[in-house]
């Protein structure tokens, strides 16, 4: 299943390399990574999406990440109440005749058109990966020229529902 792991790290040269290298070394596949500054200067947040069926793998990833000296905090937030968003830019083949059709199609997704040319439009959409996926599927029939996706960025909601199946990967 899809797991979302977030980390806060010291914003030092080579930190991303150190972390992705760790994934490579341990043979874990990364579906997406997003990185950006946090509210604290010098500290960045990373969001990893990985696919794995085994809890042991997630546990091992979490522990290995925690071992890194520049990693301050690791959380597997998959089972928590979270806000997760992805941005995608989709360049769709479009002629003046079907432009309105595309407009109405993307509207329920709260997507917008941010560029128009003679034979294409660029659609911008934000939301959870599934929503982005769904929109891309819909647009596919028009012919997609290019897609750029950011990958998921996420953190926990301010309020957590009480949940008993949360998995804290602490060994004590």
């Amino acid at each position: 299943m899809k797991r979302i792991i977030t980390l806060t790290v010291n914003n030092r040269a080579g930190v991303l390399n150190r972390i992705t290298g760790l994934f490579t070394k341990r043979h874990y596949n990364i579906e997406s990574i997003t990185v950006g500054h946090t509210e604290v200067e010098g500290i960045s947040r990373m969001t990893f999406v990985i696919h794995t069926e085994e809890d042991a793998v997630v546990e091992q990833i979490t522990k290995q990440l925690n071992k890194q000296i520049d990693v301050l905090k690791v959380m597997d937030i998959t089972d928590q109440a979270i806000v997760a968003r992805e941005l995608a830019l989709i360049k769709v083949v479009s002629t003046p005749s079907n432009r309105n059709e595309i407009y109405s199609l993307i509207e329920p997704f709260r997507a917008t058109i941010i560029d128009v040319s003679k034979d294409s439009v660029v659609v911008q959409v934000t939301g959870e990966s599934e929503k982005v996926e769904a929109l891309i599927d819909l647009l596919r029939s028009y012919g997609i020229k290019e897609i750029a996706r950011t990958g998921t960025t996420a953190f926990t909601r301010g309020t957590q529902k009480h949940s008993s199946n949360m998995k804290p990967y602490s060994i004590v």
Partner: protein
Amino acid sequence: MVLKAKVEGKNEASTTKMSGAEMLLESLKRENVEVIFGYPGGAVLPIYDKIYDAGIFHVLTRHEQGGIHAAEGYARISGKPGVVIATSGPGATNIVTGLTDAMIDSLPLVVFTGQVASSVIGTDAFQEADVMGITMPITKHSYQVRDVSEIPNIIKEAFYIATTGRPGPVLIDIPKDMAIIEGEFDYSKEINLPGYQPTVMPNHLQIRKLVEAVSQAKKPVILAGAGVLHGKAAEELKEYAEQQQLPVIHTLLGLGGFPADHPLFLGMAGMHGTYTANMAIYESDLLISIGARFDDRVTGNLAHFAPNATIAHIDIDPAEIGKVVTTKIPVVGDAKEVLSQLIHQDGKRGDNQEWLDQLASRKEEFPLCYHGSTEALKPQKLIELVYEYTDGEAIVTTDVGQHQMWTAQYYKFKKPNHWVTSGGLGTMGFGLPASIGAQLADRSATVVSIVGDGGFQMTSQELSVIHELNLPIKIMIVNNQSLGMVRQWQEIFYQGRYSHSILSNQPDFVKLADAYGIKGMKATTEEEAKQVLKEAIEFDGPVLMDFRVVPDENVYPMVAPGKGLHEMVGVKL
């Protein structure tokens, strides 16, 4: 001395102006570094210029690989971090093997590499290599200096990181200009590493769980690894094992953590472990691993590993727990702390007398054995002789292969820190340079370097250092004129097709020793071996011995790859 004056002046003003190279050496002095293993080159010339009159002992090994393995031997015996300096590019890439070796065997090193000047980094400049990129997966942590005033703090952190928690190598890459330009030297800053907080004290609840499990167990066994040695917990291990009457098994790297002649000791576990140890693991109902990481050479086929046991795993590195085997009782903490707490718990001793009796009789019935020979020299006999002639008190270093396994089997290590071997990475060429570091760490010890004829030739240039420093190391080549372990596997698993494992064109090792100014001797029979060994150990200086052993001898007993620990072959003659 200039530097000295600056140190003394430190109380008046907390900072002093120094060049990066001076800062480096001053920091090493503050960390009480006694010896540096290194090799100069363009990018580290500013540092070497300061070493010239810094008053720290520097060993010029003949290859950077020799330098870093020597530092590993030094670290293993002294318990202090080994310090290495290599130049940029080829100097740095030559230490990659040693870094990996130290990483996997948890040895503390602080390694400095030169780097091309900041202004040309990234241009494929002369002798440039992306050392940070190359070494990230094989270091505990690494730094590249980007501001000269960071040097003291980086070095302070590096020593702290290398020696605390699970020890490991830390690399510091220093661009040439950083060694030259001046900055403020301030060594008083506190270490602040919020992302690095090793857990030393174990969780009380987990300790109670373990105590409870021990009191319930009918067939308990301790599997002790090098973590016991790193944690200086050998005494506590003995006390705990005796208190609870728990049989003890060692991993290869753990040897010496528990006295080999103790009635509770069952020997080494794993591929070439003892039958008693492996069967004890297989039959146990409680397996307590202390500072061991369940390497595949120890566990054999995991499907058959301790199938009926509750696994308790004590380790300072939380990531080791659950990595290979599912653990019921995880205890994160320092081995010494954990064992001390276990000793002082009031858990009743489990009812395991029947188990102990069974193990004792099995130990009697299935000792390590080999076919003796009156004519030729058997390698196993050779190791027994070394044990005898050194009273089992020597520091022994080895390479990797058959001789390493025979040494682990037949040299009965009684005390901690007498055993230096490359366990995790299995590095040929490790033994000779490691013995240099070991001897420098303990000048008065008898150091025996047991190497194979293959591995010896990978780092034999370090004989030069042994001669130069007149280190009285007794080098023993267990010469079977082949890459013995490779040959053994080809015999067993590849129908005797000895593809490139026979070293039929060996140099005359005695003459080679002579060329380096070292006393060389040769023995082909047991009688000669006795004479040679006696003479070598009495001789005050280095000796190289070429022991021509039976070439087709194999290491037994053995757990073949893919087999469980209970499926050992070659147990009985």
